[in-house]
């Protein structure tokens, strides 16, 4: 395996700050907007975005939930092995709210398709936007594009993009893994 660092801790911090300012441009004080992190890896970024927004806006609490999409996947019974589910925790009502879906890496777009479906179980949002840290562009299987992008990469299907976080005991880092030629 060959490893290439795409973003280090400092760059991630700058990127998150920028994403937060872009969010504030569109959503003011977040009075009618909620953050939803997609399980299992999007929740770390959602945490960071929430913390940063609260610092910048000096506001009380910006609503954030975690959404699991396992039971909404379109590859159930079509691929080997079972994806085990994670917990959902959305303790507010989504009906009529603006929702920012947050994930670490956008690749084929299938996870986001499932997330849009899963979200409906909690009500009909007024608007849904997508924020990702890494956009693996030109590799979409579905017509889905992010509204807020941390960093774009061009990658092969055989490559993997991994994001690790200090809050899970590793360090803030984005790496590109490729098979050795």
């Amino acid at each position, binding site marked *: 395996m060959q490893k290439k660092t795409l973003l280090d801790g400092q760059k991630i911090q700058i990127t998150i700050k920028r994403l937060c300012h872009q969010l504030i441009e569109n959503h003011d004080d977040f009075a009618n907007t909620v953050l939803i992190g997609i399980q299992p890896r999007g929740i770390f970024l959602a945490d960071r975005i929430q913390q940063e927004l609260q610092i910048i806006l000096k506001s009380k609490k910006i609503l954030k939930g975690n959404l699991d999409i396992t039971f909404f996947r379109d590859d159930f019974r079509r691929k080997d*092995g079972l994806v085990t589910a994670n917990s959902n925790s959305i303790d507010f009502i989504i009906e009529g709210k603006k929702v920012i879906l947050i994930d670490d890496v956008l690749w084929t777009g299938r996870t986001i398709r499932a997330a849009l*479906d899963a979200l409906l179980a909690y009500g009909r949002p007024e608007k849904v936007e997508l924020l990702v840290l890494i956009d693996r562009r030109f590799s979409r299987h579905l017509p889905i594009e992010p509204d807020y992008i941390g960093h774009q990469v061009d990658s092969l299907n055989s490559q993997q993009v991994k994001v690790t976080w200090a809050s899970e005991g590793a360090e803030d880092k984005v790496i590109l893994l490729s098979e050795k030629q």
Partner: protein
Amino acid sequence: MAADRLSTRHLLGIKDINRNDIELIFETADNFKEVINRPIKKVPSLRDITIANIFFENSTRTKLSFELAEKRLSADVVNFAASSSSVSKGETLIDTVNNILSMKVDMVVMRHPYAGAGQFLSKHVKAQIVNAGDGAHEHPTQALLDAFSIRQKLGDVAGKKVVIVGDILHSRVAISNILCLQRLGAEVMVCGPTTLIPKHIHQLGVKVEHNLIKALNWCDVANMLRIQLERQDIKYFPSLREYAMMYGLNKQILDSLDKEIIVMHPGPINRGVEITSDVADSKQSIILEQVENGVAVRMAVLYLLASQG
């Protein structure tokens, strides 16, 4: 963390599954429990699957519970009751089921009065079989939901002491419960009149006690089985009244124990026989939680089986 798939294609009995399977079912059921408490209680996982519920024996709650589980997973459901079918015209089990399967059914949930009916069917038809009770043999989903309810109430099943009281002889719930609880590391005792305790039951590694008070003082959980009057071809005890006096659980007995035990019942309750109304409706009873958990556990079983169909 449990394994990431079941070790079996069918759920015929607890006898055929291992501890990993049970833990995987429980972890998945935790997720489904959250799903069925949402405003919209439905997920699309089984949208391309058709399930036939074939009941050769009466059932209200199990059938309802399976049907709800199937519908909440978005499966297509067909119901079939033997009393209103060609079985009464002399059709064999395999023919009945094959006819249903040629209508492209992927999974069969079956209750049958004969032990081993599910096993037999799984060898002769292509569909995946879920046993919803076969004679006095097994009722695996009931045992799973009972253990799941204990786990939810007490945090863990391992190390807990569970007494199963009543008609052990005719009870598929008892056999499945014993196997399931033992797989999970609980200690199991059976309690009832000598006539209703199978002769060699101790070979399963369970304690046998004929005195209800002693049994209750020993246990953390008491699972009070229903007296199955419909299965009693001969008299196993002199009268229901005597049974209720010797083996019925009332509030007075419950309050006289040193510790607060948990009371369970697989339903339907004969109020005033196995347990009195004030016990069934008391804070220590988790009978209605068992019913709620039943749907989540059955969703988990169907989902996990379907993933390897």
